[in-house]
C-alpha cells in the first residue's frame, strides 16, 4: 500500500520503504518548508515510511 503525505488540502502518494527526505523531493516539496508528523509526533527526514501510513506535513511559512 502506498504512503500518503498530506500538506494543507493536498495529498501525495509515495512508495513505502523510502526515506521521508526522498519522498518530499519526489513530491517537489522543499524539506525546509515543512515539519512532518506521524500520529501527531515529530519525525526527522531520515525516517523510513511504512506501508499504508499517513504522514501529516505542517507548513512552516507564515506571512504578514
Amino acid at each position, binding site marked *: 500500500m502506498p504512503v500518503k503525505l498530506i500538506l494543507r488540502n493536498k495529498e501525495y502518494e509515495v512508495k513505502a520503504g523510502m526515506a521521508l527526505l526522498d519522498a518530499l523531493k519526489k513530491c517537489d516539496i*522543499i*524539506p*525546509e*518548508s*515543512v*515539519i512532518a*508528523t506521524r500520529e501527531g*509526533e*515529530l*519525525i*526527522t*527526514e*531520515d525516517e523510513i515510511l511504512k506501508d499504508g501510513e499517513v504522514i501529516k506535513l*505542517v*507548513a*512552516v*511559512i*507564515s*506571512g*504578514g
Partner: protein
Amino acid sequence: MKCKKCGEKASVNMRQHRMALCLDHFIEWIPEQTERFIKKYNMFTREEKILVAVSGGKDSLSLWDILIRLGYKADGLYLGLGINEGIGYSEESHRLTDEFARKNNLRLHVVDIEKEYGHSIPILSQISHRGYGKPCSVCGLSKRHEMNRIARDLGYDVLATGHNLDDEAAVLFGNTLQWEADYLLRQGPVLPGMDGLARKVKPLCRFYEREMTAYAIARRIEYIYEECPFAEGSTQIFYKEALNQLENSRPGVKLTFYLRFLEARRSGDLFVQKEAAQAHLHPCEKCGQPTSAPDLCSFCRMLEKADTTGSS
C-alpha cells in the same frame, strides 16, 4: 537520526547547527537559547514588565510560552483586526489566544481596532486607499502604532514580538535587493526605546520558522494554522520561499545571512552611520507619538482620511 545530547531517537533535525534533538531535549533547548539571546542582545531583565504581542500564531504564542517558562513577567496583547474573509480569521485567532491565556492563567489585554477607531483593518484600507488594494500596509502601520501606544499607556518596559529568523531574513533580503539603507540601519533584535517609543525586542530572531513550528507542535500549543487570507501571494512569503530554496542546498545560509548582517551593522563596516537618524522626529499633533511628518503621524493621517471618506 540520534539526539546529540542523549543518543535517543531524534525528533527535530537542525541542519544549520548540524544537530538533531529528541523531543525532551528540543523542548529544553529552545528556552535555553532564547535566554542566551535575551542576554546577548540586552533585551530585558527579570525585573522588567514585558508586553508580548500575540496574534494566535505559532511564533507569538510560543514566545509567550517560552518567556513564562523562563520566569519572566510577561502579559499578552491581542489586537482585533476585524479580518473575516469568510473564514472568521480574526475571531478564531482571538479564540485561540484567549484559550492559551486562560489555560496558562496569564493576563491578556485585548484591543479591537474597529471598536477603538470605528473601522476594521480591511475597511480602513479601502477608505484610506493605502496599500494598492491590499490591507497589509494598513495592518502593519496600525499594529505598530497600537502596540506602541498600549505598551506605553499600560506602563510596560518593553514590547516583545514573535519575529523569527525567517521573518528577519526575508525583510533583510527585501531591503538588500532595494538597498534601503535607512531600513537596514534600523533592523535588529532590539529597537531601543526613546521619547514616545517603547523598546521593542525580538527574542526568537535566531530561530528558524521551522524550529518554531516544531516547538509549537512539541508543546501542544494550539495555534491558528490558516494563513491570513490577505497574505497569499505576498512579497514576504515569496522571499521566504526563495531563501528556503537556498537553505535547502546550503544549510545555514539564512542564519549566516542574518548574523553577518548584524555583525557588519554593529561594527559599522557596512554603512556609514548617519548622525542621529531620529533627530528630526517630533510628536504627532493628535496622538503624541513620534513622527517625521510635519504635523500628523501616518496612522492619524490615515484615520483622518478614513473618517472624511467614510462619512462622505
